[in-house]
């Protein structure tokens, strides 16, 4: 099996705090891989290093075998690594049409085009329409993003990441904050991602993790606690201790 995304001995410190400790992950191509862990385990820090928002103190990150550790954020996207954010990162003033149109334009290399007007390339238009339809945003395409209901914004968040046509997609708590009634749309969209897209899911919601993932890595205090198929992880006494320990506090 080929490895889509890999970290080798990744290490990140904030001051004296080791937030990522000697983390080596391998995510197979086409995998539905979940990264779980209790609050403060450093999951989002890992994502930020994978995407290039943060630079690791040491260690390497490989995308399809190529070292991307020193690449800036936007170049990783063009190499096929895309992400969604735990808290929506959208453009409040722009419409879904503009937001997705821009993402598609950038991927096709038209983003720097300063002369041709938006909407005059039929290949771009076709893709925009396709994405808007798939993500149930066609009716809302001319609304300012800031005015959309949260569930729609969440769909747009994922649609923007998909517009980059990633080969590896990082989903950072895709269903976070979405009301129960709109959850179904999000889960359906996540579930219908093409199989050749490798997905790394960061999630709190255990139901979602166990219904979606075929492999799970457990992160505790920035280090890898265990890794394996869902049933094995579910039985793991260490994992139980971590989660039950957390639960016990709540009781």
């Amino acid at each position: 099996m080929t490895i889509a995304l890999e970290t080798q001995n990744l290490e990140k410190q904030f001051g004296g705090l080791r937030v990522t400790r000697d983390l080596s992950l391998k995510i197979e191509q086409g995998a539905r891989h979940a990264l779980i862990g209790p609050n403060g385990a450093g999951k989002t820090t890992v994502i930020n290093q994978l995407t290039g928002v943060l630079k690791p103190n040491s260690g390497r990150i490989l995308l399809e075998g190529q070292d991307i550790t020193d690449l800036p954020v936007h170049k990783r996207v063009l190499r096929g690594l895309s992400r969604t954010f735990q808290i929506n990162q959208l453009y409040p003033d722009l419409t879904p049409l503009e937001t997705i149109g821009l993402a598609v334009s950038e991927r096709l290399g038209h983003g720097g085009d300063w002369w041709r007007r938006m909407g005059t390339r039929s290949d771009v238009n076709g893709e925009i329409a396709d994405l808007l339809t798939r993500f149930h945003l066609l009716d809302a395409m001319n609304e300012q993003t800031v005015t959309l209901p949260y569930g729609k914004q969440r769909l747009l968040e994922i649609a923007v990441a998909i517009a980059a046509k990633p080969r590896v997609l990082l989903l950072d708590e895709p269903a976070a904050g979405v009301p129960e009634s709109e959850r179904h749309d999000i889960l359906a969209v996540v579930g219908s991602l093409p199989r050749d897209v490798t997905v790394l899911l960061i999630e709190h919601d255990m139901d979602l993790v166990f219904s979606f993932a075929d492999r799970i890595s457990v992160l505790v205090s920035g280090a890898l606690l265990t890794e394996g198929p869902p049933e094995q992880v579910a039985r793991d006494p260490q994992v139980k201790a971590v989660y039950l320990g957390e639960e016990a506090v709540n009781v």
Partner: protein
Amino acid sequence: MSASSDAGYHARRQARWHYGEAGFWLIVLACGFVFPTRYLIMTDILRLALFAMSLDLILGYAGIVSLGHAAFFGVGAYAAGLLALHGIINEPVLALVVAGLAAMVLGFATSFLVIRGVDLTRLMVTLGIALLLEALAERFSNVTGGTDGLQGIEMQPIFGEIPFDMFGKTGFFYSLAVLFLLFLFARRVVHSPFGLSLRAIKNNPLRAAAIGIPVNRRLIAIYTLAAFYAGIAGALFTQTTAIASLDVFAFERSADLMLVLVIGGTGYLYGGLVGAVLFRMLQELFSTITPQYWQFWIGLVLVVIVLVGRQRLHRWMLYVPNLVIRQIAGRKAVVAVPESDA
């Protein structure tokens, strides 16, 4: 209509010309014939409008704040002055372009300082660059004429055909033509994918990078273009007034420009144009009523604008016209001021 052509149609909609826009330019053109005794002040407004449009490109679209935009205005002004004074390039239009390019080079060089850091850093860096240039212009008085400025500039006819006249008629129509052409160009640019990517960067730089936008490169590009525009405005100043003095670099010039955009609004290109007209008219009005304290009243107007909010003011101002229009043309036909910021 298929979803695809529908998407294309709506994506292009933003860039379409509205009747209001054509009307706006026709009124501006008509002013040139209706007020033949007011060419000097009207030319001044056109220059300010172009200068403000330049700031709007970086502030309204890319979100780069600047308190030193006069740096580029000044470089353009002195470049045009020196070219004419020493007879290096006698033809005004060519000299205008060369002066704009000089400012553009400076814009490109300083953009690397400006794109680093956040708003406050940017304010300080841009302010610093303008002050630095002002000091340099004073120091190298053998080139710039120091505090006396460049004197004895004589402008040659445009294209060797149309001479500048003492009433400023040529100057006005020349400035208007330049403003309009540069407006058309800017309009095209802001409706392109590049222009849209600037708005994305202004809205959310983190996400902009996360969809593959090379944020720094885009900011450098628009900053450089804006410097060209400001340089052209400066060159127009020298060419239509036949003077270039140190105050082209003055802090007040940069600060006034911010006020113009506060009045006119940012992010829809007309803000600088409308703002320039209102700013100069308010200035005239207040300085006739109270010559000493006009700045107090300008200040008051600004505070009101910021507190009440521009959108609400526009609604109030357009209330009566819209009432009339609704009576005649029905519910949907109302005048609204397009705005991306409120």
